[in-house]
């Protein structure tokens, strides 16, 4: 399974990288951690003429926690997130989700930007991006732009990125203390892509009812989904057993996953509901 031949460039600046991509008119691919791209090349599912390695763009490796939110440079690796103690309180939902990503060795190389650009429908980071309404800052030959997560993920392995654009930063909104959150994933084995997962949070109003609910599911469509019908069940309600049961049923009704070699569509449909149910239980039982 040797890769098809390609040229390789390792630019030292972002503008150099973008120039290379635009000069190759769609026949160049960005190489970040390589944990998703290299297997694709090994199976000869793609044959780019040039790989543009971003490893020298050290500006893209920062994790910034500010009152405006949490921002990850595109080249931040899973192991960097794991070892950043501040993130545990700054964004506990993200940290919980990332714990499920792949395996030890992959976590030492795989990047946040790479995961977002690859857009596997069952990957955790795109799911977090959707649930949390992330903004994806990109840079291209036309200059910088910011893409909302909801506009970014367009289908399985398909995003709004143009051929000459590089993800620079992923920005998550600020996370208030006292927010309740839940993350639940079920995979065939530890580290596998999710059969289904739920990433959600809600705030509580003075009466203890849920507000600002954000409910997302992973692995049950061609992209991560937010479920407004489920959010509507939660907002203004006490998150008790009855509400949770309704949320589960609404989730199951809202998704229509396909069958594949790992599981039937009917199973995944029910599983999505179970993941939301268990994530809500997790959230409801948290001590803020």
């Amino acid at each position, binding site marked *: *399974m*040797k*890769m*098809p*031949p390609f040229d390789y460039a390792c630019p030292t600046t972002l503008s150099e990288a973008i120039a290379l991509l635009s000069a190759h008119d769609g026949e160049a691919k960005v190489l970040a951690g390589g944990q998703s791209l290299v*297997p694709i090349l090994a*199976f*000869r599912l793609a044959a780019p003429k040039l790989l543009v390695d971003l490893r020298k763009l050290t500006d893209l490796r920062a994790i910034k926690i500010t009152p405006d939110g949490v921002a990850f440079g595109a080249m931040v690796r899973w192991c960097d997130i794991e070892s950043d103690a501040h993130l545990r309180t700054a964004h506990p939902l993200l940290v919980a989700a990332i714990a499920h990503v792949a395996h030890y060795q992959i976590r030492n190389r795989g990047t946040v930007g790479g995961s977002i650009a690859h857009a596997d429908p069952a990957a955790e980071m795109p799911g977090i991006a959707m649930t949390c309404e992330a903004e994806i800052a990109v840079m291209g030959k036309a200059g910088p732009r910011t893409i909302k997560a909801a506009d970014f993920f367009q289908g399985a392995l398909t995003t709004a990125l143009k051929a000459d654009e590089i993800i620079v930063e992923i920005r998550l909104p600020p996370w208030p203390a006292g927010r309740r959150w839940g993350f639940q994933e*079920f995979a*065939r*084995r*530890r*580290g*596998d*892509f999710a*059969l289904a997962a739920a990433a959600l949070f809600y705030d509580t109003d003075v009466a203890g009812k849920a507000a600002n609910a954000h409910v997302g599911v992973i692995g049950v469509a061609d992209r991560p989904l937010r479920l407004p019908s489920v959010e509507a069940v939660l907002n203004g309600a006490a998150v008790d057993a009855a509400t949770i049961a309704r949320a*589960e049923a609404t989730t*199951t009704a809202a998704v229509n996953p396909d069958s594949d*070699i*790992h*599981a*039937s569509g*009917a*199973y995944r*449909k*029910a*599983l999505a*509901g*179970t993941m939301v149910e268990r994530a809500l239980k997790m959230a409801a039982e948290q001590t803020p």
Partner: protein
Amino acid sequence: MKNTFIGTPMERREDLRFLRGRGEYVDDLAVEGLLHAVILRSSVAHGRIASLDISGALKCAGVHSVITAKDMPGGVPIIPMRLQPLPEFKPYEQPVLAHDKVRYVGEPVAVVLAESVALAEDALEAIGLDIEPLPAIPDHATAALNRSLLFEATGTNCSLVFRACKGDADAAFRDAPYTRRERLSTGRHYGLTMEPRGVMAQWSAETGRLTVSGAAKVPFFNRRILAKQIGLPETAIEMIENDVGGGYGARGEFYPEDFLIPFAARHINRPVKWTEDRRENLMAMNHAREAAADIEIACARDGTILALRGDIHNDMGAYMRTNGAVGARNVCQFLAGPYRVPHVMVDSQLWMTNKTPVGTYRGPGRFESNFFLERLIDMAAADLGVDRLEFRRRNLVTQAEQPYPIAHVQPTDAKDRYDSGEYGAAFEQCLSEIGWHEKAKLCGRLIDGRYHGLGISCFIEGGAAGPKETARLEVNNDGTFSVYLGTTSVGQGVETIFAQIAADALEVPIDRIRHVHHGSTHYVSEGFGAYHSRSTVMGGSALLDATKNLHAAIRAAGAKRFGCDASTIAIDGEMVSSPDGRSFPLSELAGLTAEGTFHNHHHTYSYGTHAAHVAVDPKLGHIEIIDYVVVQDVGRVINPLTLRGQVIGAVVQGLGGACLEHLQYDDQGQFLTGSLADYLLPTASDFPNLRCVITEDYPSPNNPLGAKGAGEGGIIAAGGALANAVAHALAPFGAEPRTLPLTPSKVWELVGRKDA
């Protein structure tokens, strides 16, 4: 001095090189002038080859040549069967290269030879292969319609039917007070090895000698096939066994590449190496285990088994491989397992389909038949209101009945008898080890959101296949000994185990056994290899014979030198002495060598019981194994450390086949599980709670060591034990698992979609 290295948990010699990255596997080899081979494989499951245009590939950078069927003007050689070579199978044997038809995705069509693997793979894309598709036969049911035929000349997709017979099953069923009939099936999976296959061949035109590296399992047999196919005497071919990264029955059989690579080397007069990649391995290494049973059990009201009857349909894939019939033969011959069943009539049908061909995988046919019978037993016990433990106790064969005859299989005329053992004793010990009586009340109970269940399954494991084995001992220059074996290594630790056996038999310290060489054809005059759990018994017994012969040769040399009777010569570790105290060091006999053989006409039968405690999440369909115990009696333990490794390793493979591993095809015969992200192997997190207890209560009377082949028992009962545990956990839902693998999706369906 009486050694007792046999039975001690000796650390392994082989580890010294493996732990330091100094093992030598075939892809590690490099020679001057080496060319690399890459195989063009069919991406169509069934079709006629309309044209094959290699001209584009020949123009690619670094390409030396491309080999096709046209380069074999005498005809494309056909791979003969090694085991059960019945004339009925001949039309279904595989040509080493497809030339008129392709019959499975992955079938070899051409070989590209280039300066590097990467350049050869680049050239594959330039080959024009035009195949006119034919209707695919994706499963045994379609095969049975005989509408589309894989082999038009035979007029059928059924290559053979084995019939296992004992007593008069039809009569027994007629008169039986209780019967139950069920359809059960096991999914396709295989003995994936961490090291994919590889072959390196070197041809010397001057000497007319062919050297082939990458041999495993049955190198002497493979040499015989290659010699015939390539038109060389066997003495001109040397097969070298390097370090081997796992076998499990799948590696080491004669595959198309085992001809193609040596042929290429001779054809172009350059050394050639082929290393299988994982994508290929999934579609090219022998598949196994896909069987659908329609069987019934007949019992007395008290649970005594009267008879078994039915049909088992084996999905054989596109060709009959060298040992492809073994599983299908075993599945009917051993359906009764360790139980007393006086009447048996089971037909095992071999259906050809457009899938990768099938060969043996650890416990071939036994894993399947264990699942079928053990599920039926639990169902019958429940119907009859007999406790399932009591049901088994009533029917397990006792030592008093040994040797116990089993069903007779035609047309191979295979008769056999179990050798020794009180199967119920291992059963009781297993119940005690897992704490069955304390935990039984958990069955079907919902605790913390999961349903708990206990499952049990009993097995026998046939081992020590004959007909014979050879070993050779030689005195080294320094008076130490070297052992040469006709059996082979697949990672099971032969270098250590045979040093233990040799040291005990020669009555020398273990470090006087300097080297244990295995597998390569230049070590002994004849060898049979490693399969059917035979190495320890057959090789070990041959080694005992070699020791006897070497002792006799040493005594004869001493007698000659001292002028006295050979029987008065004493041998202690390093010296040979006469009764009157004269002596000389063994090193003076350097080069003295003796061979030994052991002939075996009776298999050994190791046996035991698996018990599983599971917790099933009804919404996730996830099965957690809380505890899992295997009790296995092996007759005699040579090395308890390596034996435990075999049992635990086998259990994890079995659990993989029971709930994770599944080779899948679509209805056009397209292969769907093309990577390790699709074909799921057990990892360190999946089954952490495993225990085994090994006993030596009943040595085998069939060999001088008293040992029984024991590498497969851990896998045989895993499917049955797990499925029975899940059935009992989900009893509140009336769930009856009838299919493996038990994936989360399937388990959820068994629960009945209460929440959908």
